[in-house]
């Protein structure tokens, strides 16, 4: 629009006054703005909490915690630095109000000045030469162009976009190479009631639970006897495990499973036996009833102390939070439930075990008066997680794991606690009971061999019990393992002791050659034992807590065959299968192979 200026009173005092006001307002705002920017930059760089002088004083106070003068200085410094910081913040707040005020004055002055500059409008010199046809043509083109740009933008955003929710079975893809080789991936990814259970032969070929399928006896005959963790000699691979845990590994075909956990998270891991690559990782969360805050547990137990188990189709894991999950072999959750946060002074550590389609859980808790908690043993349906049976137990906590025994007449699941009780694994029916001990802390899992049941309670006794009559065959109150589950083979009883030393008893009598109720031999070691011994052919493998494997012959006299060392400490019992040992250290999972 062209304009001609109307008579303007631009020389009037009011006009000039407004102009001056606008300028002053503008300059004032500008100055405030600069000051605010400077103050803001200073605020951003200031760190009143970590003043060097303050931290120096704090360090001084650590060395002399009773020094009142330093305390006073710290208080003053802390107060001064905070005060300076908040003063700067206050200045910012006030400055903004000044700035807004200045801007209001500037705008108001200019809007008023506009009145002095009002102009008579004049139309364009030319007539409107609009071309309606051309205009409409261009309007359609522009509209189409705009719509195409919008649609194109939308498609550029949308078409390459892949939501992870569209591919819920991503882990299956990752592990597909291995599964294809086995040719059984379909069954694994769709576990259902129709899925056949693993045969005893399959179970025997794998390592489905704590101490393997045969109570600490490996089917292997030839595994390495030398390796060196530091140099890497004999180590096929070593892979870090994200979260800590004292649970031992289990193995099914070409996969090793582990659990880990801390206060924040509990997880199940699956590693490839080939190269140690983590195939999947399942975060155990979102289970109804799971505590928002993890219970307090002992650092010796942690949140993932219980060893997993598998039925060959599913893997099962339990944690110190009471969370119990069943996953398929690809890490997809089949079911999950919380058994109630266990009341346990150290933390839950009893491992899981499967009998056919029943998952057996020993859930012994600290029973206080009027406590709603209760100890129980339960048989859980592996496919649904539903309870098949549950039997209440009237005694306090234990840390041992259930033992599955076939006596030749029947299957029994035997649980060691103050009272040793045998149950029918299918129905939960109590088969027999034995009052064993009072108030002991029982961690080693019972062991069965040749009709005798071996029970250990640290700082108390070893008891050999006739499983049919529940009569004590022999007992010994010396050299008792507190955590390590013993190995009984060839009529000999072997165990590692918490405080160090390996002990061997005559399993039948508990007596030495002189008929005295004493060990056959005791071999001193520098470090103690939490891991359990494994028999491999004619050798016993027993790892101490420092990471040294004690390899010896299962004989009445101690004969060392080697003491290879890992580079990190450990408490876990290894998987020994084929020509390979899988071992969990405090931070890494190792494969030691011939």
């Amino acid at each position: 629009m062209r304009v001609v200026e109307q008579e303007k009173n631009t020389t009037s005092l009011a006009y000039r006054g407004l102009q001056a006001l606008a300028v002053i307002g503008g300059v004032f705002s500008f100055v405030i703005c600069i000051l605010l920017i400077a103050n803001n930059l200073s605020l951003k760089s200031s760190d009143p909490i970590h003043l060097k002088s303050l931290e120096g004083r704090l360090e001084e106070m650590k060395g002399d915690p009773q020094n009142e003068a330093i305390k006073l200085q710290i208080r003053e410094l802390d107060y001064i630095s905070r005060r300076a910081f908040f003063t700067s913040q206050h200045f910012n707040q006030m400055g903004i109000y000044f700035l807004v005020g200045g801007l209001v004055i500037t705008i108001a002055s200019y809007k008023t000045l506009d009145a002095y500059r009002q102009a008579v409008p004049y139309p364009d010199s030319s007539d409107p030469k609009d071309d309606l046809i051309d205009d409409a043509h261009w309007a359609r083109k522009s509209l189409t162009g705009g719509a195409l740009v919008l649609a194109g933008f939308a498609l550029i955003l949308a078409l390459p976009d892949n939501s992870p929710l569209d591919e819920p079975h991503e882990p299956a893809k990752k592990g597909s190479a291995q599964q294809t080789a086995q040719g059984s991936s379909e069954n694994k990814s769709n576990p259902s009631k129709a899925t056949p259970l693993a045969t005893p032969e399959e179970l025997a070929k794998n390592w489905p639970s704590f101490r393997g399928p045969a109570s600490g006896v490996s089917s292997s005959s030839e595994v390495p006897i030398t390796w060196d963790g530091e140099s890497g000699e004999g180590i096929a691979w070593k892979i870090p495990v994200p979260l800590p845990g004292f649970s031992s590994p289990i193995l099914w075909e070409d996969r090793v499973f582990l659990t880990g956990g801390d206060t924040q998270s509990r997880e199940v891991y699956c590693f490839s036996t080939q190269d140690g690559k983590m195939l999947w990782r399942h975060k155990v969360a979102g289970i109804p009833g799971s505590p928002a805050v993890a219970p307090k547990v002992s650092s010796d137990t942690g949140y993932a102390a219980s060893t997993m188990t598998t039925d060959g189709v599913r893997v099962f894991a339990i944690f110190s939070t009471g969370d119990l999950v069943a996953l398929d072999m690809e890490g997809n959750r089949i079911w999950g439930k919380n058994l109630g946060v266990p009341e346990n002074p150290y933390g839950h550590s009893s491992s899981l075990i499967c009998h056919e389609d029943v998952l057996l859980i020993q859930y012994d808790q600290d029973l206080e008066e009027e406590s709603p908690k209760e100890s129980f043993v339960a048989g859980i349906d592996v496919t649904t997680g539903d309870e098949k049976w549950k039997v209440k137990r009237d005694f306090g906590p234990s840390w041992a794991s259930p033992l599955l025994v076939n006596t030749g007449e029947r299957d029994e699941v035997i649980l060691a606690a103050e009272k040793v009780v045998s149950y029918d694994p299918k129905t939960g029916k109590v088969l027999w009971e034995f009052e064993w001990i009072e108030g002991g802390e029982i961690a080693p899992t019972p062991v069965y061999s040749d009709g005798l049941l071996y029970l250990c309670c640290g700082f108390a006794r070893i008891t050999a019990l006739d499983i049919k009559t529940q009569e004590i065959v022999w007992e010994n109150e010396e050299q008792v393992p507190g955590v390590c589950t013993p190995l009984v083979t060839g009529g000999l009883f072997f165990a590692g002791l918490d405080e160090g030393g390996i002990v061997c008893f005559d399993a039948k009598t508990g007596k030495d050659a002189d008929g005295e109720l004493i060990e056959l031999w005791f071999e001193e070691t520098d470090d103690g034992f939490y891991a359990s011994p494994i028999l491999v052919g004619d050798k016993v493998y027993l790892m101490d807590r420092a990471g040294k494997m004690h390899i010896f012959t299962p004989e009445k006299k101690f004969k060392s065959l080697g003491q290879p060392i890992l580079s990190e400490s450990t408490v876990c019992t290894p998987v020994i299968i084929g020509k390979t040992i899988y071992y969990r250290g405090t931070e890494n999972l190792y494969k030691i192979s011939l």
Partner: protein
Amino acid sequence: MVISYKFLDQRFIKLLFGLLILGLMPVVQAEDVMRFPAPEFDSNYTFPETWDLMDGRGNTIIQDTTPRDGQAPLPTSQTQQWIDVGVLTLALSLGAWLAVKRRSRRGLFWLMIFSLGYFGFYKEGCVCPIGSIQNVALSIFNSSYAAPITVVIFFVLPLAFALFFGRVFCASVCALGAIQDLVIWKPIQLPRKLTIALSMIPYVYIGGAILLAATNTGFIICRYDPFIGFFRLNGNAPYLYLGAGFLLAGMFIARPYCRFFCPYGVLLGLMSRFARWHLAITPTECVDCRLCEASCPFDYINKPNTGLEREERATGVRRLASLFLLLPLLVVLGGWVGHEMAPVMARYNNTVFLAEQITAEKADPTMKASLETTTFRSMGIAEEQLMAEATKIRSQMNMGGWLLGGFLGLVFSLKLINTSLIRDQKDYEVDKPHCFSCGRCCSYCPSDEMHMPNFKPGSKALEEALALGKPSEPEPETVSAMQKGKA
């Protein structure tokens, strides 16, 4: 002695103003919430006040221990809400009277300043009719949410006024419009090609906002309000820069947010189209003087088109028929694009986002757990429940994507048809669906006896203007002389 301010003329000051707006950004950002640990020892430091957001039953929904500054305004009391409704009603009534009856730009300007102060700075931009679209949408599609009656009134009232008096809300009540109106300096006329190309954006915005609100995903109109940071003297830097960008652009492109983005403008436009008592350029009869032709900084004055060459009728009919046939195809095509966009939009939903993160972390065991997933896992909510909820929302979003895309396809088709329908325009008239009723054009009409600030009756300027405004082309010499200020 006369002091010369020539060096500080209007342009300089306005440039200074623009720079100040930019300069304000980092300063305002400094007011952002600052987490501060408790003092180690006793001191005079006092903790900032905390505030709780309560539901209607007095249960705490959100407990915020951060300082109040920078947060959304506190929920207002019922009384305050009704006071706001009262102020809105009065402001709209006054605006309608000033625009339609008084035709007073000055009155509308001062009402606009009041509204900026009250609804903008005092109420901190909340509640506003633009954002209320989302409350209404959510309450319609989500039975567990009922929009407060006062919010519904905020949504309905400006539309009702627009139905009878045009967009008086835009003229004088909307704080977002007011802050942009204040900074208009040298408005340029944008090419029509560009304005038409941009005309789809408000429809995309309102459609998207309704979809996201209906699925309880979020209130994007409020989240991306470019001026809220100014009203609250606080905000995140990107949004403040966005607002500053709008204001700077607004110095040359008048009220850009209102014209090319405002979702509420779509509804106001629909209503205003039928306004019987809309502000008119001339109070009597248009003499086609053309003086108002360029008075509208928003380019919302329709020019007469009689006597201009028209398209052959048969060609026009054929085109219209083709466009009508194309309509269903464009609706389906739009629906397909919307459907493709659905997963992307669904990701804006916290539940879907969380479910995707959890699934991604499961798929890639090496991925570090995010803060969100860690927090979720610590809450003890079943993952299956989350996944089921996410699937439900994605399904809703999928359907919504089809509807949104179809709606946009329909709007596009109707716009194409509209541009092909050329209606007779005899006089200079405001573009009713778009006109903000700001009243600027009124004072340019020489027929307005009530307000003729530019034309004193019988003045030389009026005579010249009327003479020049006649349809005949003025003599080149006259124009030249006028340009030199000699007329």
